[in-house]
């Protein structure tokens, strides 16, 4: 069970990308946990990183910063960073902050993976 206050990160390996499934909340108190998990995946040399937000309830600006860092690092490594499964609330956060202009957002996993 996912505790509402916690962040759970589950990793799935697809043939095209590594998929990070986040559940719970990302805020200032646990953004560093996400950052470390993401770094590990990037350092392991993945061609693409897909964030699946299906079970994510909340992300703060500290969390958005981690996503931005991930996208930058992947770009430097000639890889792609993709996002899917945003709840209405998180889509709104992306829209207001303008992140939807900068990060590629898809409705579903298969839509995202089709672009890799």
């Amino acid at each position, binding site marked *: 069970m996912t505790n509402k206050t916690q962040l759970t990160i589950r990793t799935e390996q697809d043939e095209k990308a590594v998929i990070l499934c986040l559940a719970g909340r990302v805020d200032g108190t646990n953004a560093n946990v996400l950052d470390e998990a993401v770094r590990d995946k990037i350092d392991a040399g993945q061609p693409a990183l897909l964030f699946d937000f299906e079970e994510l309830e909340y992300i703060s600006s500290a969390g958005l*910063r981690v996503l*931005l860092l991930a996208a*930058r690092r992947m770009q430097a490594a000639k890889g792609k960073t993709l996002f899917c499964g945003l709840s209405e609330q998180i889509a709104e956060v992306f829209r207001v902050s*303008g*992140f939807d*202009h*900068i990060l590629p957002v898809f409705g579903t996993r298969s839509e995202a993976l089709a672009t890799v």
Partner: protein
Amino acid sequence: MGATRILMVDDEEDLELLVRQRFRRRIRKGEYEFLFAHNGKEALEALEENPDVHLVLSDINMPVMDGLTLLGQLEETKPDVKAVIISAYGDMDNIRTAMNRGAFDFVTKPVDFNDLQITIEKTLKHINALEQALKNRDRLVAIRRELDVAKQVQLSGVPAELPVGDAFGVHAIMNPAKEIGGDFYDFFELDEHRLGLVIADVSDKGVPAALFTMITRALLKSSSRRHDSPARCLHEVNEFLCQDNDACMFVTVFYGVLDLRDGSFRYSNGGHNPPRHLTEDGAVSELPLTGDFALGIADGHDFGENLVTVVPGDALFLYTDGITEACNHQLDEYGEDRLDGVLGDGAPMNARELAESVVGSVERFVDGATQFDDITCLSLRLRSPSGSAGANGSQ
């Protein structure tokens, strides 16, 4: 490293000679330097004159002031001095008393100088460890002081005093979270007719966020004096912030310019929560986004601009997500609906009442749950010519 200075306190002159003789190699090599006193009083005077002495070897039975009295004084006035008692074998009662008064160790007479040597070294190690601990503590105090400085930096990120005008009232509240946050607001008079309103939120906390906040505020203030267009200003600030921004820190900024002559409010929104436009009859609407994103993310972006008209009696309410994302104990968010509910509450409110009502409502909602983000808002109300209650009152 200079010699370790050790104070020997004994009324027997023989011991002084013996010590000089037995430790002569270490004295010659510059490892130890001995000072001598003949009673407790002399010892205290010697310590007063030589603050670098941290180790005392003392006899118990001495004229004027005995060793036990000396220990009592040391414990009270010189906590950084450690004493080793040298006393006659069989003088166990006095030795127990000495240990209870804080003596670090004891050796018995006749003195076994090998044992004394080992005891001296052991005591010196302890003294060094203590000194290190003190230094670490001082460093910690220094870091805390730095954090206080960062807090000051954050608070200096907002105007100390808001200008007062005949045509408008303005009020701002910032309740920083426990950790140093990255919210700021600004309000300035560009000239006698035009007002600049800013609200912003940096993506991080702590000292880096405080510094980023300060830089952003300074850049925007400087841009606002050179360019009339808010979009142009955000563009310029963004270009600066994007340079060498390896930490990927970003800041959401809303900047608007209100012209009091015609009520035109021109703004650009760099990824910030849309402020609210309130009319005198209680209608609340969001100021539409300008299709832009937070500053510091991507350079070369041309920011958009919107124009709305604000008439006397209307109000503008700018806020950060610390308000809408404030959580109660059940982790429910305060949310925009509650915010709009307070803003559109029937009773017309002046600028101060607006800000205080919202923050008060948030506080009641969270009901003492931990505040994770800064809570910041800036409200402005144009005075109504009719002078009705809602538009009156500046602060």
